[in-house]
Each structure stands twice: as structure tokens, then as C-alpha cells.
């Protein structure tokens, strides 16, 4: 019964081919069915795992959420001695470090992709692409160590004093760049995160830029467009769905990055206006404190943090989907 269902809904060409080959033998049908069940099983197992993870996070984090209520999200006290926990510092740290990373990574990735797809001499294209993709293969702990031992000292000696003197004195945004030059902190974490997510965003952008039909680009060039105009008015509109997808893929990675951030964000449970001051992210505080979370409420609070990160990532995904949907409908609107 089920076998015939499977066969009937299989793609037409395939079914035709299998019918031709087996000439009416039924033995192919169970194979089809098996294959379909197997792939469905794989897909469902992953989905079920996701739901199970979410469920266990809710279950384990429940005692913290019940104890502190909504205040858990908006208080900044994190005191393992008195068992008072609030997630605000870590939520802010996660969002700010990821925002810095995106501010840097998106334009840089766009430039890289444009260079590789449009401007680079063809002999350079391969090596540059390969090197950028190699960045993605470096384990995050290596980024952390590099950030701590190489980048942070340089940043403290060269960049931060300059920022202090030149930007820190400005009214308004100056407050973001004040503080002792330590080399570690929110800004350093954001920059290293940017380096980590650039390969993801850049390679997606490059791939879709490359598949933009040459006829479209050539027509624009023929009308006298500059490279920038072609990028802005031809390539980007054509590829914006995939570009947005790539950007959100990078953002998702930045939000959840643990090891590298733990090394360089400074791990201070304080809110500070300055980006040069140390902070903490959700992933980093869990990595730091999980092993020694001795009281049940403490452990539950850390798991509730995990749940919050899960929800933030989920919101980002939903937001990305909605954005894509809107882009698609507006695109279709234009067409008609």
C-alpha cells in the first residue's frame, strides 16, 4: 500500500525510468520507499534533536526563570555568592560584540566578493578565494589565542591610545572609546569575530556575484555604468536574497561564538559604555562558569542563559526569513 504511494509520488522521470528498467517488477518499490523513509528519518531526527535541546534548556533553566521572572532579562547582577542572577550584561555583551563584528564584516566581505568577482585579474582570483576560505578552517580557539597573544597587545599599544586621543575626546561617540588601553574588551572581541565571519559572508557573496548573468552586467557596462553602479544597481538587487542569507549566517555564528570571545572579551560582569572596556557574552560566561556552578540555581541560571541565546538566534533567523520574504514580494511587485 505504502509502497505504491511512494512510487506514485516519485518524480515522473524517475518513475518512468525505473518502470522501464524493472519492467513491472515490484522489487524496486520497497527500495524507493526505504530510501524515502531513510531521508525523512534523517531530516526528522535533526528536527527532533533541536526540539529536544530546546525542551531540555527550558526544563533545566526553569527554576532560574521561575525564581527571577522577567527580571532575569533586565538585571545586571550576577552574584554566585548570594545566588542572585540576571542576564542583562551578557545579553548586551552578545549583541554589542556581534553588532561590531557585522559592522566590520559586511562591508569588508562585500568588497572582497566584488573584487574577486569583478575586478581581480583572473590569475589572482583563485589564490585570494582559497586564502579567504582557509580563514574559515581555523579553529576558533586559535583565533582566541592569536587575539590574546598577538592582536590584543598590538591593539593596546597602537590603536587604543590613538582612539583615546582622537575619538575619545569627541562629544557623543567619544564615550564609546574611553578607558585604559588594555587591548582586550568588547571592541577587540568584535574585530576578531569579524575576521572569523568574513570568510562565510564573503564566500557566499562571491558565489552569488559570480552567477549574476553576464548579459545583465554587460548591458549595464554598455550603457556606461561604472563598476560601482553595476554592483549597486545590477549585482546587488539580483543577489540580495542570497546576500542577506549570507549575512545572517555570519551573524548566527558571531552570536554563538564561544572560545575566541572568552579569550579576548575581558570577562567582566559589568556594563560599561566604553567599547574598550571588558564585557562578557552569553556563550563566554557559560564556558567560564559551568564547571564550577555548584548550586542548583546557579546551574539553572547558566542554562537559562543558554535558552536566551537560543531564542536570540531563533529571532535572528525568523527576522532573516521575514526580510527575505519581503524582498521577494517587493521584487515580484516590481516585475509585474
Amino acid at each position, binding site marked *: 500500500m505504502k509502497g505504491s504511494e511512494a512510487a506514485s509520488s516519485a518524480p515522473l522521470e524517475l518513475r518512468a525510468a525505473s518502470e522501464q528498467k524493472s519492467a513491472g517488477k515490484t522489487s524496486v518499490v520497497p527500495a524507493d520507499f526505504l530510501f524515502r523513509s531513510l531521508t525523512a528519518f534523517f531530516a526528522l531526527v535533526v528536527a527532533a534533536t533541536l526540539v529536544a535541546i530546546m525542551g531540555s534548556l527550558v526544563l533545566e533553566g526553569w527554576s532560574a526563570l521561575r525564581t527571577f521572572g522577567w527580571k532575569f532579562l533586565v538585571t545586571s*547582577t550576577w552574584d554566585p*555568592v548570594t545566588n542572585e542572577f540576571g542576564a542583562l550584561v551578557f545579553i548586551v555583551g552578545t549583541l554589542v560584540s556581534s553588532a561590531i563584528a557585522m559592522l566590520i564584516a559586511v562591508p569588508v566581505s562585500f568588497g572582497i566578493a566584488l573584487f574577486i568577482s569583478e575586478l581581480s585579474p583572473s590569475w589572482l582570483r583563485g589564490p585570494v578565494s582559497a586564502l579567504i576560505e582557509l580563514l574559515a578552517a581555523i579553529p576558533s580557539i586559535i583565533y582566541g589565542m592569536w587575539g590574546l597573544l598577538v592582536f590584543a597587545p598590538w591593539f*593596546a599599544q597602537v590603536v587604543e591610545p590613538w582612539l583615546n586621543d582622537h575619538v575619545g575626546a569627541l562629544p557623543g561617540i567619544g564615550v564609546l572609546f574611553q578607558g585604559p588601553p588594555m587591548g582586550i574588551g568588547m571592541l577587540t572581541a568584535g574585530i576578531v569575530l569579524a575576521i572569523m565571519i568574513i570568510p562565510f559572508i564573503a564566500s557566499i557573496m562571491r558565489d552569488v556575484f559570480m552567477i549574476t548573468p553576464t548579459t545583465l552586467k554587460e548591458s549595464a557596462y554598455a550603457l556606461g555604468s561604472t563598476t560601482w553602479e553595476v554592483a549597486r544597481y545590477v549585482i546587488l538587487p539580483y543577489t540580495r536574497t542570497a546576500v542577506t542569507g549570507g549575512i545572517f549566517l555570519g551573524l548566527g555564528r558571531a552570536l554563538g561564538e564561544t572560545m575566541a570571545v572568552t*579569550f579576548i572579551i575581558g570577562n567582566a560582569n559589568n556594563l560599561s559604555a566604553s567599547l574598550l572596556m*571588558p564585557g562578557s557574552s552569553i556563550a563566554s560566561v557559560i564556558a567560564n562558569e559551568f564547571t*564550577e556552578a*555548584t548550586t542548583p540555581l546557579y546551574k539553572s541560571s547558566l542554562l537559562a542563559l543558554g535558552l536566551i541565546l537560543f531564542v536570540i538566534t531563533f529571532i535572528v533567523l525568523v527576522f532573516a526569513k521575514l526580510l527575505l520574504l519581503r524582498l521577494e514580494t517587493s521584487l515580484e511587485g516590481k516585475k509585474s
Partner: protein
Amino acid sequence: MKLNRRFIAKAAAALAVAGAVGFAATANAGVSLTGAGSTWVFPLVAKWSAAYMKETGIQINYQSIGSGGGIAQIKAGTVAFGASDMPLTPEELAKEGLIQFPTAIAGEDLVYNLPGIKPGELILSGPLVADVYLGKVKKWNDPAVAKLNPGVKLPNMAITVVHRSDGSGTTFTFADYLSKVSPEWKTKVGANTSLNWPVGVGGKGNEGVAAFVQRIPGSIGYVEYAYILEGKLSYARMINRDGKVVSPSLKGFQNAAAHVDFTKAKDFYVILTGQPGPETWPISGCTWQILRKAAPKATNAEVTKFFDWGFEKGQSMAESISFGPLPPSTVKAIKAYWKTNLGI
């Protein structure tokens, strides 16, 4: 049948349900014990267990997952012993059916990064360190620092406080000491393996703190003694409870242990920080081993045999990696404690 039973027993041992009953009769080869906990005591247990394996054929698997993890594991009964840098109170031990005893003594010290000031040149006191870590003393040339260091040219530099970001027994020992010398620290911060730090940046592990201190001019941090020797860090001398200026040393840590009477405290519940004595190092610490009373007697016997061996034969090994052996009177008291509580 016999073979089969032996096989199952071996599998059980491998599964960390250590020292299954019935092993005493067979050869030692293949016997294994599992412990978990403190990262601080890991080098010592590793060194002891390697030598113990060679001598007796008994394998000790120790997982350095942190003191909190060690306590959780022994409570759950998944390991033969748990190790913690923070002792459990006698009440909690009684409630959970556990016992504890000290293993070895060590200490920690403050390290700093100040241009032109040599290792050991800077002198600090407990209350001053508490004020620095509370964020009250912000500059190196603050009168409070200058008063303790006449003749030292202190720079006009901001103090960057470095602490541990991960939960740690090192932090507990440090914070416990500050709680003893500063009432403000006691009420505002307190002592635990993780704290709500008023100021500063957090480094992961001793090496993380050491790395920050080496790279941030004007910084101060606390690390275990072994890291000072290894990393050639600029360490501070401290003013101890007797008002004497002391340098960190194994002898200083052992003096701290000699002044607490381990033998009289119930379940050895004493903390070695801030002890009296002219040569006593004020920030000394200890690791406790925790056992389950309800564990099979053979398992507990294997564990106590291992630590007994360590107390008797592992002294020089301990000293070679900057752990101070327990005083003989304490070792005697531990053996009596085993007898009363475990019947071993």
C-alpha cells in the same frame, strides 16, 4: 563462568565504577580507580598516579573537571573520589554521607606588571589588595601603596585588576583571604569559586591571568605559586598576620598548615588563609579529597591506599611541582579519620 564474571568486573572497572568488589583477590593489574574534580591538584594526582601505576599496577584516572564538578560527581557516586579546593562543611558532609581529608598544601600570590619594579620588590598587605580589587585604590602611586613601599618609585599608572573568569578554587582561596582581612570585601563580595567582581578583567585559568598580567602594563592578578616559578612573573611580597613581610615559598605554605590544627577540626574543615606565624604565607590553600561512606569498602580501601602511598612516598614528587606535603601529625589524623569513618 568464572571468566565471564571476571570480564564483567573488568568492564565495570573500565566504566569508572571503580575498584569493583572481588578485585582484592586477583592481581592488581587492570584495577583502575576514577577520580574527578579540582584542576589545581591535577598535576599532583597525575604525578603520583604515574608512579603508583609503576609500583602497584593500579591505574588512577583523574579528570580535572573543576572542584564543583568533582563534588557533583562524588555525590552522584559516579567516581571513587572527588577533589575540591573548597572544603564542604561538616553538616553538608553528614547530609550527603561523605567524608573529606586534605591532600597537599600550596599557595598563591599576586603578580604585577610595573615597568622598572623587579620581582619581589613590591610589598602588599591583605587590606590593600582588597581595596584594589574593590576598585577603591585605582592608581599605583596611591598613598596606600606608597606607604607600604617607601623608596620604590611607583608610577602614576592606572591599576588594571585581573581575576579568574572561570570558577576556580584559586579564586575561593583568594577571596576567602580577602574576606578575613577586609570586612568590606566580606559583605560586598564574599568568598566562592566564582564571584561578582566589582572591577577588572577576567582571564581563563591561571595561564589566562598570567597572560593578561604580562601584557597589560599596570595590571595586577593572582596566580598559583607554580605559575610564578614557571612564568617568571613579577610577584609581590605580602605582609602576613604577624605583620612580617614574607615571600611566597613552600615553607611559608607549610607554616600556614602547621598553625591550623587539622587534627582538631571536625572533618578537617579549616581554611589555610590568613594564619598566624612570623614566616607564614597568608594566601595558602589546600585540596580536599571527598569519598562516599556508602561506596563499596574495597573501593574506598583502594582510594585511601593510594593517598596513603602519596603521603608516605610522594613527598619529594609533590615538592618538585610546588606542592607542600602535609605535616606528619595531619597524616596521622587522616589515618585515624579513615579508621573511624570508613573502618579502613
